[in-house]
């Protein structure tokens, strides 16, 4: 800053001799000089040539220095154009007037070149400082504008992705702060081919775009695998492996995944790192916490990841409520957290289940918390299966290569049964047959029912009557996990046969297992539409498929699907 860059300096002075003297001094200091003989002249010159600094006589004809200073400051706007008043005035009141009119300093006549040079230098420093501040302010404003725009675009793209699922289904209610995604919150829902609903509420570490980047790959896995009929464990393993692979070590995603089965009236839950969710039984009013039992997604290696889920029975009308930590971590003015206890009080006070989310939102507002941008809540209720209509799948192939006369047999042995879910592959194979596509939901439901019967009651020897009440239900799934872990031998065989019949065709599915079988006659005696928790499998198969029959003392199940000529 020592070597002053030459400035353009306007000298407004009505006395020609003074003007020349001053011009001479200023020029000798290396600056360029513009001159004006009165205030109006000065304003004109300023307008045309925009000098950096003005030396202004106070008393001038036509327009005095005070008025000229005001007008020049107005013209300069945000830019600092320092005005130094030249004055022989000495009363303090007059000097104060100079500053009030917008002057930045004054210089007493007669002129002292050393003081003048020092003042010009000081004013130039101020001028540059102001310019830098303005420039930085504009830069920040521009960056902010860019950032908001990027977020708008990213949000628009992501909203499309998130809403390609079934968040608008009649049994889902949710509340999310508008930019929750940019605080890492993610809410997804989709139907699987059997009409079960998968829901994910996730919360990535961190804030802003870095927290949002993991959302796309996670959503991709979620939708892709749900649509193909994969269960929660396989989907979770894939999500975890993918996030572990792409995210930096210190980033991960807390998540709760649900699979709501309307046909089995149950919910399967995996919670890794999210606050307790709640399963609300409407009949008893009980709220069962769905507690985090796992590390978040993206922390553990695929080898050590734990995909074990819990299964709970549900009655029609029961609800599952999930929330992100933004809800309970909302702070009031004194840094007090909203907390789980206050949330419980809202639960207790709630009379109308349908207004719960709004009541929690209101409670957060009443709590005086800063409105946080990472508040997400979702409530999913169990409806009668018939009340929901999963969207039909859209196929893009021509149908010319559709296989119509074939059979295939599979045998899945112990080591495979432990970890592998063959249903998505079988379903994909069968959906190559165009005639079966219209009933893909029923087909998948029947296949998964027969497969899980063969595995759980056959190979693992689990007693389905355990599932008669809620506590037995939990025991059943505990035993299932234990026995599956310990499984050494056993098999499930699936035989598929597709034959053309007239212009349509027929699929025969046979599923056999290595288990002890069951009392077929007694199972078939039960009414078709019981609301019991156990034994629903058999009646479901009989309702959805045709000519269902069991042989070999229950170890072999057979069911058919027909289709007519395609339009």
């Amino acid at each position, binding site marked *: 800053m020592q070597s002053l860059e030459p400035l353009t300096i306007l000298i407004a002075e009505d006395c020609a001799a003074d003007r020349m003297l001053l011009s001479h001094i200023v020029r000798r200091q290396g600056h360029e000089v513009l001159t004006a003989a009165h205030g109006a002249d000065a304003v004109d010159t300023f307008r045309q040539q925009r000098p950096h600094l003005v030396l202004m006589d106070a008393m001038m004809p036509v327009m005095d220095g005070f008025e000229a200073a005001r007008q020049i400051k107005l013209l300069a706007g945000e830019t600092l154009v320092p005005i130094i008043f030249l004055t022989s005035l000495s009363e303090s009141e007059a000097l104060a007037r100079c500053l009030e009119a917008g002057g930045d300093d004054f210089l007493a006549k007669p002129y002292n070149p050393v003081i003048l040079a020092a003042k010009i230098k000081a004013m130039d420093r101020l001028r540059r400082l102001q310019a830098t501040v303005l420039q930085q302010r504009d830069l920040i404003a521009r960056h902010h504008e860019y950032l908001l725009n990027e977020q708008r675009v990213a949000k628009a793209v992501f909203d499309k992705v998130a809403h390609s699922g079934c968040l608008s289904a009649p049994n889902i209610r949710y509340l999310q702060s508008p930019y929750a995604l940019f605080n890492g919150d993610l809410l997804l829902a989709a139907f699987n081919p059997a009409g079960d609903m998968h829901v994910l509420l996730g*919360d990535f*570490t*961190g804030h802003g775009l870095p927290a949002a980047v993991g959302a796309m790959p996670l959503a991709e896995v979620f939708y892709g695998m749900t649509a193909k009929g994969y269960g929660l464990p396989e989907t979770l393993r894939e999500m975890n492996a993918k996030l572990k692979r792409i995210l930096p*070590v*210190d*980033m*991960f995603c*807390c998540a709760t995944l649900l699979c709501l089965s309307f046909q089995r009236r149950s919910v399967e839950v995996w919670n*890794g*790192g*999210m*606050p307790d969710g709640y399963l609300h039984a409407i009949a008893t009013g009980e709220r069962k916490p769905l507690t*985090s*039992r*796992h*590390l*978040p997604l993206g*922390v553990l290696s695929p080898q*050590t990841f734990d995909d074990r889920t819990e299964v709970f029975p549900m009655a029609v009308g029961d609800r599952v409520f999930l929330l992100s*930590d933004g809800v309970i971590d909302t702070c009031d003015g004194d840094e007090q957290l909203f907390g789980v206890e206050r949330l419980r009080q809202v639960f207790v006070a709630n009379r109308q289940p349908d207004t719960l989310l709004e009541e929690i939102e209101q409670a957060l507002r009443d709590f005086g918390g800063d409105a946080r941008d990472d508040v997400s809540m979702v409530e999913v209720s169990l409806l009668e299966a018939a009340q929901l209509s999963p969207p039909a799948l859209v196929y893009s192939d021509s149908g010319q290569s559709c296989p119509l006369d074939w059979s295939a047999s599979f045998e899945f042995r112990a080591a495979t049964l432990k970890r592998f879910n063959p249903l998505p592959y079988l379903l994909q194979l069968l959906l190559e047959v165009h005639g079966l596509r219209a009933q893909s939901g029923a087909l998948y439901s029947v296949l998964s029912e027969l497969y899980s019967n063969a595995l759980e009651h056959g190979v693992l020897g689990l007693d389905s009557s355990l599932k008669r009440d809620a506590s037995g239900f939990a025991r059943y799934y505990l035993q299932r996990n234990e026995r599956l872990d310990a499984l050494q031998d056993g098999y499930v065989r699936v035989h598929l046969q597709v034959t053309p019949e007239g212009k349509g065709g027929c699929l025969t599915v046979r599923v056999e297992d290595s288990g002890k079988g069951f009392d077929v006659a007694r199972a078939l005696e039960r009414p078709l539409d019981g609301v019991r928790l156990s034994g629903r499998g058999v009646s479901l198969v009989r309702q959805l498929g045709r000519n269902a029959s069991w042989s070999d003392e229950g170890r072999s199940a057979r069911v058919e699907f027909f289709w007519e000529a395609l339009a």
Partner: protein
Amino acid sequence: MTVTAELSRDGKQLTISVKGRFDFAKHLEFRKSYERKDGKMPKSVVVDLKDATYLDSSALGMLLLLRDHSGGDRSDIRVVNSSSDVRKILAISNFDKLFDIS
């Protein structure tokens, strides 16, 4: 200094203490506390949270970075003196499966 690191006399144990809110603002300090010039890492690390009032998810991320830096699954990291609030946060995330928490 809100993050301090102290090496035991035999050089085998590093104790990192965090004061106040343990959140993203401590990122650099925390990393500096265990990244040593010689690139060597003491056998065991103790993270002392006696004076930590709060812990957010980015702090959990920092603990994961520390774990990764000191050998991942072979690391020996103890998190000690955590308050009940802090312990709740560690419990929800099930970090006791990765760290020895007391």
